């Protein structure tokens, strides 16, 4: 059985490769459709010396035929090289930027994900055990409203309320810039400040995380509310629940058992939600000036730095692939009916 699971994970992991390849291909060709020379677009004026232009083109690999560029980059990608930036500063490895930005996005998405799951389960359970009452309707309205909240707007309202009006929380950035004793190691600021034993920094990092992760987490919680509620209602009407109740098992315990059963489809939703979460992270990061992957893409877009955009998309694809792999493995472990 353990060997079977190992094989299942391996096969499932190999399935990430075509996905990354396809997304790379789409993005590569889309970025090349654009008329005009990206270098000129970056430099802005057409009166730079031709030799310098040639040199820059060569540096970026743009002097080669399209298919050579395609396979060159692919080959580099396999070695973890995502090319060099095409714009100010030019010629820096894209991966060095991503190493700086990705941890910020990971930190934000982990917190937002936790908020969304906890809130979603809480509201869903509340709706299910008060089925058919006003509370149930309220939870249903919550799920629709949360789902259709526009992230930047909701974020701004929280900024206005907790930042401008109440002065409780900071509205942008990851850490108070006046804290000079903090030095990032991994880029995951929570981890870094704990390693360094720097509690003021930790406090500031957590403070900065609250509003962005609440914004993203609340918006994404709506989908869970619905699913948890509907599943739990189904499970609660099943025979085994009645049997438990008849035997005098306390309600709280029965609910726990039922929730365990209602949870399996929620795991599948988590995988799907994660992609939406990453998309939402771009908007959240822009709203809260959060130096993550989303703001990285937006920064690079203003420079028309295609290599960086391409690199960021590949990293996102890899991220999504790994998450869906994890979700599938958890699902396989939870649900004995899955064959692997």
């Amino acid at each position, binding site marked *: 059985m353990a060997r079977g699971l190992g094989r299942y994970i391996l096969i499932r992991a190999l399935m990430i490769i*075509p*996905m990354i390849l*396809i*997304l790379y291909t*789409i*993005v590569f060709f*889309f*970025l090349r*459709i*654009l008329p005009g020379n990206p270098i000129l677009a970056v430099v802005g004026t057409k009166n730079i010396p031709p030799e310098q232009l040639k040199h820059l083109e060569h540096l970026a690999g743009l002097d080669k035929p399209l298919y050579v560029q395609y396979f060159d980059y692919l080959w580099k990608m396999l070695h973890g090289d995502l090319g060099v930036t095409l714009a100010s500063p030019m010629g820096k490895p894209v991966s060095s930027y991503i190493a700086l930005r990705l941890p910020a996005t990971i930190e934000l998405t982990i917190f937002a994900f936790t908020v969304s799951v906890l809130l979603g389960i809480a509201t869903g359970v509340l709706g299910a055990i008060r089925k058919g009452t006003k509370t149930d309707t309220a939870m249903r309205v919550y799920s*629709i*409203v949360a*789902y*259709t*909240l*526009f*992230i*930047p*707007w*909701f974020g*701004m*309202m929280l*900024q*206005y309320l907790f*930042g*401008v009006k109440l002065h409780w929380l900071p*509205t942008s950035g990851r850490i108070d810039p006046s804290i000079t004793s903090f030095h990032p190691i991994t880029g995951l600021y929570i981890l870094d400040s704990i390693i360094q034993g720097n509690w003021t920094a930790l406090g500031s990092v957590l403070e900065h995380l609250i509003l962005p992760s609440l914004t993203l987490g609340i918006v994404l919680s709506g989908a869970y509310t*619905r699913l948890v509620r509907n599943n739990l209602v189904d499970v609660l009407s099943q025979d085994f629940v009645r049997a438990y109740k008849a035997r005098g098992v306390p309600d709280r315990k029965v609910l726990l058992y039922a929730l365990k059963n209602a949870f399996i489809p929620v795991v599948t939703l988590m995988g799907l939600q994660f*992609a*939406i*979460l*990453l*998309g*939402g992270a*771009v*908007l959240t990061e*822009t*709203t809260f000036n959060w130096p993550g992957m*989303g703001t990285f*893409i*937006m920064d690079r*877009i203003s420079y028309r730095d295609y290599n960086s*955009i391409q690199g960021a*998309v590949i990293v*996102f*694809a890899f991220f*999504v*692939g790994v998450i*869906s792999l994890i979700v599938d493995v958890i699902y396989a472990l939870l649900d004995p009916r899955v064959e692997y």
Partner: protein
Amino acid sequence: MMVIEGFVKLLRERKPGRGLFIFGFSIVLIVILMAIFAPWIAPHNPTEISADVFQPPSWKHPMGTNNLGQDVFSRIIWGSRVILYVVAVATTLSIVIGVPLGLLSGYRGGKIDRVLSMVMDSIYSFPSLILAIVIAVVLGPSPINTAVAISFVYVPTYFRMVRGQTLSLKGQLFVEAARALGVKDWETMKKYILPNVLPTVLVVFTLSVADAILTEAGLSFLGLSVTPPTPDWGYDLRVGQPFLLDGYWWLAFFPGVMIMLLAMGFAMIGEAINERLSLGTR
């Protein structure tokens, strides 16, 4: 015709989902009317710059004025045109591309099916907003380009649904009978399978329009959809953000509320239809 009859039924019959439907439908209807009659409803020219900057909401300016002295209320009314136009074009495009591809893939099977499914699944599992951003950047800021970018990311949604349905319909007797009689493949798809797939397309459509609205708003918030001074909800929200922190809340508040209401209106219609048909697609 079938769609209109269904709408009327949802409005008249006292069954679960009616309240949701009426509420959602009214919101959407109001926004559509706003867009059609914009020139007559808007009290001011939405792009006219005046010296009355940062005026709070008043009788003269129901939603106040922005940093350029433009009337926010008039911009909201005119802005409904851009978002509705983009979403309408985008969803039409994704249906026109996604449905036939899904039919072909499901009906033909084999290599075409495997390749198409793999490509579509890859796009589907990737964060749609990020892909739309990349495409929108390449095409440049204009409403039609935004629509193309959004349509691209929603093709897989229709494709997957239609492919699945086609697969199950293909095995049914009436389709086999048609094939046995020698009806051509494309005619079987058009005459026998497509009509049976359409109700599902309708449900997927109502459920994904809300998403498409939020994607459009997201792209224009990021500055990838329209160029100033075109009134646009997402873009106006972005412009209003720095002033919100100075206490001028009305610049950002109203455009955001409109985006949310419109998305909510469609989500409620979708929810009501879905509940009635109880297909349980989500």
